[in-house]
């Protein structure tokens, strides 16, 4: 499965597109898309750059980021892995 992700225009935070066409910071709320749905949804999402910048597809495996970019997307989802308390503060 796939999901559409982007960065929020106003503050750059990582966001995901929901099944109702909203944008959320929670991956759990993102629409799970098969290949056909994914391309069509990305096309729509790419026209929403007033909310979401640089929309693209990510792969999901058991509701977590998967595929070759799993680490990058996991870091986008959960924040830096540096263990620094100052980098982990809630946005």
């Amino acid at each position, binding site marked *: 499965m796939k999901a559409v992700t982007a*960065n929020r*225009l*106003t*503050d*750059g*935070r*990582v966001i995901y597109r929901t099944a109702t066409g909203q944008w959320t910071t929670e991956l759990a709320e993102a629409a799970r898309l098969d290949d056909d749905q994914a391309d069509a949804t990305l096309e729509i999402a790419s026209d929403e*750059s*007033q909310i979401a*910048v*640089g929309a693209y597809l990510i792969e999901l495996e058991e509701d977590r980021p998967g*595929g*070759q*970019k*799993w*680490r*990058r997307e996991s*870091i*986008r989802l959960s*924040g*830096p*892995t*540096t*263990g*620094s308390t*100052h*980098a982990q*503060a809630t*946005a």
Partner: protein
Amino acid sequence: MYKYDSYDHAMVADRIAEFRDQVTRRLDGRLTEDQFKPLRLMNGVYLQLHAYMLRVAIPYGTLNSTQMRTLAGIARDYDRGYGHFTTRQNIQYNWPALVDIPDILDRLAAVEMHAIQTSGNCIRNVTADPFAGAAADELEDGRPWAEIVRQWSSFHPEFTFLPRKFKIAVNGASADRAGIRVHDIGLQIVQNDAGTTGFEVWVGGGQGRTPRLGQLIKPFLAPEDLLSYLTACLRVYNQHGRRDNLYKARIKILVEALGAEEYGHQVEDEWAAIRDGELKLPAEEIARIRAFFGKPKTAATAPVPVTENRAFARWIDRNRRDHAVNGLSSVVISLKPIGGTPGDITDAQMDAVADLAERHGFDEIRATPDQNLILPHVRNDKLEAVWSGLVEAGLATANAGLATDIVACPGLDYCNLANARSIPIAQAISSLLDETGLSEKAGDVTIKIDGCINACGHHHVAHIGVLGVDKRGEEFYQITLGGAFGTDAAIGSIIGKGLAGEDVPAAIARTLETYLDIRADGERFIDTLRRVGPDAFKEAIYADA
């Protein structure tokens, strides 16, 4: 320090007003992202993995306490309470909201700072020896020249859209601490046979995917000709640089393709037409800029303290440097706590550094290419007070120049370009080398780590370089040996196949153990490495692989 005049203030204020309007138009939809992106980049605003990143210029790494407090306030009010000092003597904020950035720029402008030309294909923030104006081995303070170059290059209409970014460094000491051979142009202050100071001009150095050392094209350039000669250098590059290929667009590729001699000839031809024109620097203007950069005067002549306090003594031994003025020292404030994030500093720590600089450091602070800070001028009889203040702030790590003084780019934890993480590798190496005592035993060693080939972490010019690569979703790390940043600059050699991240700290520990086993009397790590060659360490690196 240089003080803005009315032109500087007006230029920066105009740019902020322009950018505020651009942000407004982006937010209300009048600008598309494609239209806005080059505009934000011209103001130092990147979009990274988790958020926008704002890169703030610190001209030639020089700050005062008021500016440092402003940086702390920005970290507190608009970020997550910290900032990150970079290898280009700048500071980056990792979490600002786009909507806040014009206000942040206003705060910076109020203390004569900005983010202009910290991105884009223009002449970037000029860097310099962070000990300039303080070092005991200095021929001449490079900062006035860096400031002259800054003024000339700021908003330069001819050089705003170069084939690629362009970095200039200035060094005025016998030891090169500015890395002049790994910059697009490196200016080394020298003295000719007549006793006149001028510049060696080195061109075509750089790191990234094609690391090259700069080549000398002008053994002696008279100071008054600096700007006309730089203009000629830039014009030849601007005309012939490879705009058709991003990976071949830096001046190092042009200099290599033409040959340094031919490139130098073309520069001379261009220069002949302009050298006696309006770019000739008037003596009174040079004197005016120099007047901003005096050395501190002090009647105190106390020697460096000898102490029974082992922690203080260790810090004096590792982090103090000789000063040109009797009775003064420079001190390195390590931003490399054991197991910490290289270059990170909290808002409270920034405030503490500002207080110490104001109270005991003639109000001057420097940012270094090693991601540390420096108090360049501290009276010897105030060293203990400075150290105590740093201990209280958690900034007294006595490891300047040791293997735990690791440089690392932000890597995949923050950066959109990265393929692998850098900071966790730095943290693991630092912890292991400290636990085993190897950092202390091995003495002067540089370790620099990158998460991609763009090499913001300078791995090519580290004694031990670490480059993260991605292989089908897994991180691997190539080790290079034998690089050097400044004096005796060198590009490190790749030792072999990449290691898994968890194997890197032990491999580096074994490398240092090998050095300790085979070193001759008085040899530093780099000396031994150059004597025996990198292959002598291959077995140590791959022992467990």
